[in-house]
């Protein structure tokens, strides 16, 4: 083993981003040769070092213990890179942020008093300094590899923050909103997935969160033209990146503009 020492940490998450690391099947041997992976419980390594050159962090902060642990991880890390929607925006579990946490607790668990949780799910950057973020639910293997190889060659990290629309056009996809009248978050969503859903004829679900330039009111008007209601738009915004600031501000405002269900039309 050689190369920089690496740790991969998990907080509140589904493990999908860590699985994306393991999903780099053709590259795994080369990754293992290029990186000195010391901590990656999902795959085996469990060496607690005082210092890792690079920490990759999956998951959001949902307990008081998490708050302590991410500070500890930060202190042990050179570069800290977050992986995925949970770590960068709070994840789908951040839906609790606008709900009654006690009601959630007792609706879900038989013995809610055994549960130790914060009322909110927050991104890593809300607690410690983050050096680089990989978006997505889950992250894209291509972006992970591009980030690792950029670090190894000491190049600028090659993340494009433009819209998914650009990736659609690069791929040669027709716009599903224009050609089929399908509700699509692509125009406001950060690139990275290579336009996975529109390439299969579906609208974008916004897995990579807000793009560098978000105009949700503009998208709302465009949805109005294809008879997609505020309800549908709010539901689309309130998924994996529900607490991304641009998405939550808009979805809260649209929800406040009309009670749920009053304008429902299927897309």
């Amino acid at each position, binding site marked *: 083993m050689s190369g920089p020492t690496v740790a991969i940490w998990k907080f509140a998450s589904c493990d999908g981003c860590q699985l994306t690391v393991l999903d780099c099947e053709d590259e795994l041997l080369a990754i293992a040769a290029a990186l000195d992976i010391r901590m990656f419980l999902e795959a085996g390594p469990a060496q607690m070092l005082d210092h890792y050159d690079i920490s990759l962090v999956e998951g959001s902060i949902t307990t008081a213990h998490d708050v302590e642990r991410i500070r500890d991880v930060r202190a042990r890390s050179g570069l800290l890179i977050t992986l995925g929607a949970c770590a960068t925006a709070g994840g789908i579990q951040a839906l609790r942020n606008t709900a009654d946490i006690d009601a959630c607790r007792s609706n879900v668990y038989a013995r809610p008093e055994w549960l130790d949780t914060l009322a909110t799910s927050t991104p890593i950057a809300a607690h410690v300094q983050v050096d680089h973020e990989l978006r997505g639910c889950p992250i894209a293997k291509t972006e992970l590899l591009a980030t690792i190889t*950029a670090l190894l060659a000491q190049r600028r990290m090659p993340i494009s923050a433009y819209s998914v629309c650009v990736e659609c056009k690069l791929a040669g996809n*027709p716009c599903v909103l224009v050609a089929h009248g399908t509700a699509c978050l692509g*125009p*406001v969503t950060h690139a990275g997935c290579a336009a996975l859903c529109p390439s299969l004829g579906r609208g974008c679900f916004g897995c990579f969160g807000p793009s560098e*330039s978000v105009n949700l009111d503009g998208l709302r008007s465009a949805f109005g033209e294809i008879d997609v209601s505020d309800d549908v738009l709010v539901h689309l915004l309130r998924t994996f990146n529900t607490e991304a600031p641009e998405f939550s501000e808009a979805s809260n405002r649209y929800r406040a503009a009309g009670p749920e269900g009053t304008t429902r039309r299927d897309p």
Partner: protein
Amino acid sequence: MSSDAVILDPRSGMQALIDALDTAGYRVLGPVLRDGVIVYDDVVSESAMPTGVRVEQGAGRWRVFQDARPERFSWTPGADSWKRFVFPARSEVLRIRRTDGSWTTGQPAAPDRPLALLGARDCEVRALGVLDTVMLGPNHPDARYAQRRADAFVVAVTCGEPSSTCWCTSMGGGPQPHDGFDLRITELSDHAGHRLLVQPGSDRGEQIMAVLPGSDAHNADIDSAAHVVQRSVDRLPVRLPGAELPALLAGSELHPHWDDVAARCLSCSNCTMVCPTCFCSSFSDHTSLDNDEAFRTQEWASCFQLDHSYLGGRPVRATTAQRYRQWLTHKLQTWTAQMGTTGCVGCGRCTTWCPAGIDIIEEARAVIGSQMVAARLQPVDVYVHPR
């Protein structure tokens, strides 16, 4: 009789044309209907090309209708442009490999066959000319573009069914190509039946035409084609004074209307990506995990991307208003001084494919209409924003 034109059967004649181009060594590209849109792709059989397809286009709207009619070209223009073939959306430029302490470099192989573009509309033929000026200009010729473009055979088509988004006649063209093609097809459908009138535009075109199983065209066919053109012209009102746009838009940098558009514009880049003349691209470097291989790629970029104007540590055009202004004024105003041609051919794609339904004509009219140009252009009411 007109021996410099032939009449072809719309199906067997089309197949003969594809075969003749293939035999002559071309990679034949033509329109195909896929995922509800018409795009250009490799065609081997004429049956892969649309038949009886109509397309309804509007601002932010494209709908395809299929019926039993036999027409081959009753739609305009395709969703995607020929740009994708002469200037691919993503391509590798260079690859470097380290072996035993020394470097070997490789460049992607040149295409093995020249392209044949079957079904290029007038706006598309002119768009290729505009791209040529940019990509092959003396200051920075692009050798890879030159390779892809070299010897391309153009089969142009007269537009008999302009879309409501088409505005070529405002930008000095349409609906019938007059040059820049090797063969030109005009689809005829009258009392004499459904047929294709084929006319040559070059020696190469004449050579291909000579092997097609056509009959000589008659004057009645030529007259029928003129009627098709006139009918289309009647449906293509001049919507902007193309040649005067650079002067009319000059000095509009701080116009308040840019903020009005910015409230609607999503900065999504669709307009620039579907535009057949937009040429911006960015390069990026990639390395292998063992650091022994590096390669550089080029991909389409857009002035709607923040990186596009990143200078001195920040984007110069940080707001959507600035970016929309860059797009519109580059296409309709500054391009002319920069390149010596118009930047827009009036194909209407940017309007159709804008998810927000923003129409470049309406926005240009809004800016020009309230510009301080009244003294230069009387009367000005034609430029008043219609809303």
